[in-house]
């Protein structure tokens, strides 16, 4: 069961990663990259690492994405 979940998660992560690299819209890319972190934290839970999962969710995907957006926003503004 967990193997199937793992495979599923792995596929989702890889697809999101591709999207993060190749999507034209930078916003989507950033969100995809954040989502990679989120799905990774689920994977961590499968791997018996709740501490890591919590950290990844809050820092790796949460705060990083926020910072990305801040910067993107700033760039947008100053590009006007």
């Amino acid at each position, binding site marked *: 069961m*967990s*193997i199937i979940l*793992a*495979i599923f*998660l*792995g596929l989702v*992560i*890889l697809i999101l*990663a*591709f999207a*993060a*690299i190749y999507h034209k819209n*930078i916003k989507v*890319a*950033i969100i995809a*990259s954040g989502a*990679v*972190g989120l799905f*990774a934290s689920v*994977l*961590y839970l*499968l*791997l*018996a*690492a*709740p*501490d*890591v999962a919590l*950290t*990844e969710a809050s*820092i*790796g995907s949460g*705060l*990083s994405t926020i*910072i*990305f957006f801040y*910067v*993107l926003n*700033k*760039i947008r503004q*100053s*590009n006007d």
Partner: protein
Amino acid sequence: MTQYLSVEFIAMLTGFLLMVIGVWGIISQKNLLKIVIGFSLFDTGLNIVIVSLSYVKNSTAPILDKAVEVSDAASKIADPVPQALVLTSIVIGLGVTALMLAYVMRMFREKKSLEINSYNELKW
């Protein structure tokens, strides 16, 4: 073949492929933000790889509570060391990402460009 059909191996494979995608993003994308995203993906992949190293077959989280008694902890838990390392790695990753993004922001201000090719002044 069956040895490869395990959670940890799949996780590790995912991590590795994520790293490869990240590296590809780093070396092929011209957009500064995409490069930073590449780094972030690379880091996540690396973290997944590390965590999958910590996994012991059928183990539980390395937390001693009612489910895991002190006496049989050694046979039940996952390796806590790589997990501790990943914690550090994630935080460092955040620091590096913030730093890179601050740089990107500052560079953009200078030239209004996100193309890495526009920052080639220093050479030779």
